[in-house]
């Protein structure tokens, strides 16, 4: 039955209606199963269960990417790359961490790759350099804090942080990961996570000073 379901995924429109409905019945049941069970099925040749993992986590991954880049246009491209990487690496998943921290790690690494590429591009692009230089940013939000919604200002503040400070704050405050999970995702010590988080918040407070002043 699972094989039929897999066939329906791979063959798309050409699949048979009857087998499609049987697969749907099986899929409903699988949808409620744990990550571990789905991964075990995947590793045993039932690649179609990957869909349930994607549907379970793609919202969170998209949110994470959006929080890092604050650009709607690139969310799906990076999210797609994350899940493709996960699909390719899942046969080697060893259950040493939870699936979603593993998936987050992939997402963080993909985001870092993208940030690195942008850094190189930034070196050659005067416009980007002018738009995103920290000084310019601070000047902008300090002069006109009232022009933007608080959420947008916070997002802009996050963008101004260096990647190593931006990631822990996104993972902690937006995605709600624990310190251990953040350390696992970022592949660093918990102590590092704590100090980076503290410094990231200090930097964010500094850049959002006018906003905080008005609201506290």
């Amino acid at each position, binding site marked *: 039955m699972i094989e039929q379901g897999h066939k329906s995924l791979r063959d798309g429109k050409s699949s048979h209606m009857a087998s499609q409905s049987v697969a749907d019945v099986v899929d409903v049941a699988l949808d409620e199963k744990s990550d571990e069970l789905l991964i075990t099925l995947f590793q045993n040749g039932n690649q179609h269960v990957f869909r349930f993992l994607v549907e379970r986590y793609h919202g969170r991954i998209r949110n994470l990417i959006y929080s890092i880049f604050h650009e709607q246009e690139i969310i799906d491209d990076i999210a797609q790359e994350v899940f493709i990487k996960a699909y390719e690496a899942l046969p080697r998943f060893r259950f040493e961490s939870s699936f979603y921290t593993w998936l987050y790690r992939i997402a963080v690494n993909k985001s870092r790759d993208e940030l690195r590429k942008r850094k190189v591009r930034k070196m050659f692009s005067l416009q980007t350099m002018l738009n995103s230089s920290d000084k310019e940013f601070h000047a902008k939000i300090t002069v006109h804090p009232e022009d933007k919604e608080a959420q947008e200002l916070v997002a802009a503040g996050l963008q101004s942080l260096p990647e190593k400070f931006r990631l822990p704050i996104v993972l902690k405050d937006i995605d709600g990961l624990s310190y251990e999970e953040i350390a696992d995702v970022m592949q660093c010590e918990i102590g590092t996570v704590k100090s980076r988080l503290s410094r990231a918040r200090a930097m964010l407070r500094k850049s959002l000073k006018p906003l905080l002043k008005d*609201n506290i």
Partner: protein
Amino acid sequence: MKQLLNHEVSELLSLYVDGELDAEKVKFVEQLAAQNSEVANELNELRFLKRLLTSKQPVPEKLGFWTRLSVELDKRSREQDNLLPFPKKLIPLMSALGAVAMVVVAIVLYQNRSSLFQYAGKQSERVQQAYENNILKASLMPWFSNLDKNQVLQFALFGTLPLDAKAETALRVDESAEKGYRIDVGRKQAKANPRVTVADLYKQINPTQAQLLVIDSLLNRVMLAGITASLEPHQRDRLERFLQTGNAPYKVAASNALPEKAERIFREIHRMPQVKTFILVSPDSAAYSHIDVDLETIRIRVRQVEFQRHDIEAQMDVLMRRFADREMSPVHQLPAPRENMRVEAHREGDFFSIRVESSSDETLSAPRMMWVKPRIRISGSEKGRGFNYRFYQDDSTFRVEMQGDSITIVKMGKMNPLHTMEHYTLDSIFRDPNMRMRVGIHAMRLDSLMDAVRRGETDINTVRKQIRKMEIEERTRRKKIE
């Protein structure tokens, strides 16, 4: 508060808002906040920030994410499959078979290595033969095939080259015009040139054995400039007279070199440090001055000249074609690209000519090819002497020493130190003590001559003549020894 550093307090507050502190530390932080307004403010700000971040709106759901992803996964999977000409599960088997096949091929090659080497040798011989037959014998350049050494010399000296013996056609390059050049193509020569042989040339210039070797190799490359470069100044004078007598189109002193691409030259200039101090040297004076060179203006000017050159070349091409099609009168003048430029085609018997002339020196003046002396090995005790350049300067004089086969050691004296352009004039010419070896027993005579100049008993031209005379005597002496 005093016991904790600021960043330690901040870290503690950060942990507090995340709910990561135990009861004891929570109590400590709350007490700290109650006692210190700065801490309380920071804590409030952290709470507010956390609230803002936590309440961040999730990015809107995008429909069809899975559909798009599954299509991409399917596509990549197909691409991966297509790279292999066999099912994936056979990869280990195919790898093993590949390794075995490579070993077999290696063994076969090793066993047949001698025949392989033979085959490679034969191929190499064939390539060598083809090269000699086709390239060295110039079958790729039919105009120059079957030319013997004397014909090459004839072309090098007088610029006439037989194109086709049966049709009696010849190509003639004429550079005798002072401000231009001329290319003639026709059935016979307009003016009869003396028939010369290599032996005639050798008889005239009387070269040494080493020079003979150089000239012989240069002859094969049709490079008159190379021949003249191999000669001593007095030999060059004789060659020049020889060419003049024979109505040769070339002058010995220099020949026009094709201009280098200006852009390349400018690139090189930019790489060099931009010096503003120059020494301008003329035969009897030298000026030491600061000059600002505006490279951009020069670049623009050179470009203009280059464009004009292309225009002229294009016009010449048109003329050649039209003349070949007999559409032209015997003398025809084209509108020139510049006012002081004349492009003219005319006919003399079966020859036609295209002449490019300029009434001004500045146009079309290709850079003069510099004299380059071939490296001729010096026998005997004078080994290791090469080109040497030294420059000395004090308040009132400077001295340039250029020591080579022909030496020039010049001492310049400052004439007007108050002038903005420091101007030096020739003070004297003398031999460097290091060169005594070269002039041998004449060293003392030279010194005494220089003393005589200083005392005003003789003039510098007399000294020059004496030096020239001594050089000839020295050369004759060496020749006798050889």
